[in-house]
C-alpha cells in the first residue's frame, strides 16, 4: 500500500511532465503554422504600405511603373469613393486594398482578410488586370474581303490583380483619380520603358497584344 502511493506519486509527476511536453509540441506546431500565415500578412502589409508611399509621391497626371514583390494567395483591388459597394474601411475616400483570396469575390474576400489604404482627394480608383484574361471579340473594322477572320483575341481586364511570389510591375496613372494596371506579359515579359510609358500605358489599358 505504501509502495503503491510512491509509484503513483512518481507517475503523476511523469504524467504532468508528459502533458506539458505534449502541450508544448502542440503549441509550437500551431505557432509554426501561424508564423507562415503571419509572414504573408506582414508581406501584404509591406506591399500596400509601399504602394501607398510611392503613389503619394506621384504628381497629378504622372504615369509610372511601380515594381512590387508579390505574395501568392493575395490580390490587389480597390474602390472609388463613389462606389456604393465599397467596404467600410474605404468609407472616407477611394482606396487601394490588398486582400487574401483568389480575387474572385473581391468584396467578401477583402472583408475576411485585407488591408486597405485610403487616398483622400482622389475620386476614382480603377484597378485593371489585363494579364492572362483573353476573349474573342468581333473586329471593329472588319473587312470581309481582306480578312477572313472576323474575330480577334483581346485582353480583358478584371478588377483584381492576383499576386504571385515574383516581382510584378504595376503601371500607375494618377489623374483625377488613380488607375492601377497590371499588364504582365502584354508588354513583353514585363518590360516597360520610361521613354514609351504613355504608349505602353495605352497598350496595356487597351488590351493590345
Amino acid at each position: 500500500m505504501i509502495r503503491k502511493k510512491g509509484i503513483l506519486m512518481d507517475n503523476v509527476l511523469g504524467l504532468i511532465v508528459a502533458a506539458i511536453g505534449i502541450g508544448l509540441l502542440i503549441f509550437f506546431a500551431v505557432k509554426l503554422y501561424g508564423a507562415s500565415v503571419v509572414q504573408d500578412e506582414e508581406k501584404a502589409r509591406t506591399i500596400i504600405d509601399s504602394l501607398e508611399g510611392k503613389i503619394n509621391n506621384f504628381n497629378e497626371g504622372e504615369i509610372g511603373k511601380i515594381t512590387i514583390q508579390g505574395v501568392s494567395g493575395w490580390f490587389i483591388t480597390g474602390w472609388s469613393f463613389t462606389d456604393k459597394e465599397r467596404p467600410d474601411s474605404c468609407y472616407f475616400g477611394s482606396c487601394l486594398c490588398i486582400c487574401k483570396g483568389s480575387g474572385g469575390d473581391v468584396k467578401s474576400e477583402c472583408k475576411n482578410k485585407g488591408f486597405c489604404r485610403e487616398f483622400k482627394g482622389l475620386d476614382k480608383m480603377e484597378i485593371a488586370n489585363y494579364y492572362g484574361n483573353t476573349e474573342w471579340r468581333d473586329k471593329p473594322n472588319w473587312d470581309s474581303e481582306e480578312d477572313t477572320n472576323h474575330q480577334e483575341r483581346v485582353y480583358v481586364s478584371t478588377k483584381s490583380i492576383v499576386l504571385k511570389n515574383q516581382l510584378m510591375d504595376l503601371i500607375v496613372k494618377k489623374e483625377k483619380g488613380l488607375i492601377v494596371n497590371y499588364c504582365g506579359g502584354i508588354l513583353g515579359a514585363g518590360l516597360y520603358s520610361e521613354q514609351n510609358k504613355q504608349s505602353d500605358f495605352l497598350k496595356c489599358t487597351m488590351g493590345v497584344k
Partner: protein
Amino acid sequence: MAGRGRKSAKKREENNWDKKKFGKGDRREFRKGDKGEVRNLILPSNGKIKDNLFFAEVNSSKNNIQEKGNTLRLSWKGDKGEVSVFFIVTIILAIMGFIAIMFFVLNFFNGGVSGTDEVCKLSVLTRASAPSSVQGYVPLKCQTKKICLTQSWLGTCSQFAGEKDVQRVVLPSGKEKEKIEEISANAMYDCWNMMGQGKMDLFQSLKGEVGLKPTESACVICSRVAIGKDVKEEVILKVNINEYMRTHNPPNSDKTYLQTFTDKSVRAYPKVEANSQFSQLGKGKIEKLGTGKKIEVSGSAGNREMAMVFMQIKTPSVEDVLTNMVKYGGSVTAGVFMMPVIGNLAKAIVFSPVGGTLTAVAAVGMGVYGTTTAWEGQRIAAGYCGEFTSSLEKAKAGCSLVQGLNYNTADINQLCQQIEGSP
C-alpha cells in the same frame, strides 16, 4: 537544571518529527502542543486530504486536531516519492529557461525582431534543420535591405521613394568609386553568408507549391543598392566590382572576396576569348536551340539600382552545371564557383537542361568581360554546386548562387521562379 531538562525533553519531542523516525504512511499519535512540518495530512475522522505543505500545530484549530490521541498518517518532507529540493530547483530553472526561450520564439514568430541579419541567419538555420514536411512553414525572416548611395547629405534615391527603412550612405568626396565597389561587394558577401553560403537546403518543399524541380529556382532578394541622381554617371562608369573583389578582402578576413568565394589558390578570373560564346553575352536576346524561345536581357544604361539576389536550384546533374560554368568562364574549385558577367543568363544557360545548346546570340551593346566597367553591367555570380546540408537522410544536390542583378522584373523573374523573404 530541572528547567534545562524540560527544555531538552521538549526538543527531543520536536525532534521526533524527524523523517528518520517517521516515514510516509507512518502512524503517530499526536499530543496537544506537538509541532512540526506536515505534508499530506490525512484526517481519519473525515478523510480529507490537504496537499499543501504547512506547519502544523496539533493544537491549532485549523486542522481540527485538538483532542489528545488523534491518530494521523503522515508523509514527511524529503521522504521517498516526494519532491526534493533538487527537483524543485530544476523545475524552477526549467520554467525560467522555458520562459526565456518562449520570449525569444514568440518574438521571432511574431516578427518582433525581424529584419536584422542575425534573425535572417537564424531563420535560415531553422529552416535548413527543420524536417522537410514542415520546412515550408518555417518563414525566412529575411528582409530586403535598401541601401541608397548619394553624394550629398540631403540626397535621396528616387528608386526608394515612399519606401521605409532605407539606409542612406553618403559617398565620400573623391572616393565615390571605391565606396560604391565596397558596398556592392559587401552586400553580395553578406547575402552569401546570411544564406548559409549556399550549402543549406532552404527550399525543400515550399508548401508543395514549387517542390523545386530541376530548373525551378527560388530566391531571396537580400538587398537593393541604388545610386542617387546626384552621383555623376562618369563615377559609375569607373566602378569595377569584379576587380574590387579580386583585390580586396571582406571585413575581418585575410582572403580576397574572390578567394573567399572560391579558394585561396584562386587569384584571378579565367581569361575568356574575345570571340567565345560567353564574350557575347550580356545584353540583347538569346535563343535556345530548337525552342524558338528568346530570353530578354535588359541593358544597363540608365539603371541605377542593383539587387543582390540569392538563388537556389535543384539539379541532379551538378557535374554538368560545373562543366558549363568552366565553359562559360567561371572559376570552379571543389564545387564552389565565381563567374564574372554571367548575370541573369546563369539560369538560362548554365542551369537549364538545354544549357550549352545555346546557339544564336543576338548581342547588342556591351557585355564583354574585360571591357565592361558599368556598375550595373557587372553581374558577377558566386555560388556552390553540390550536396546540400539538410535534415534529410539523403542529401539533395543542387546549386546556389548569389549575384547582383539589375533590379527589374524581367531580369529577376527570369532567374527566380519564386521569391521569398520580405520586400
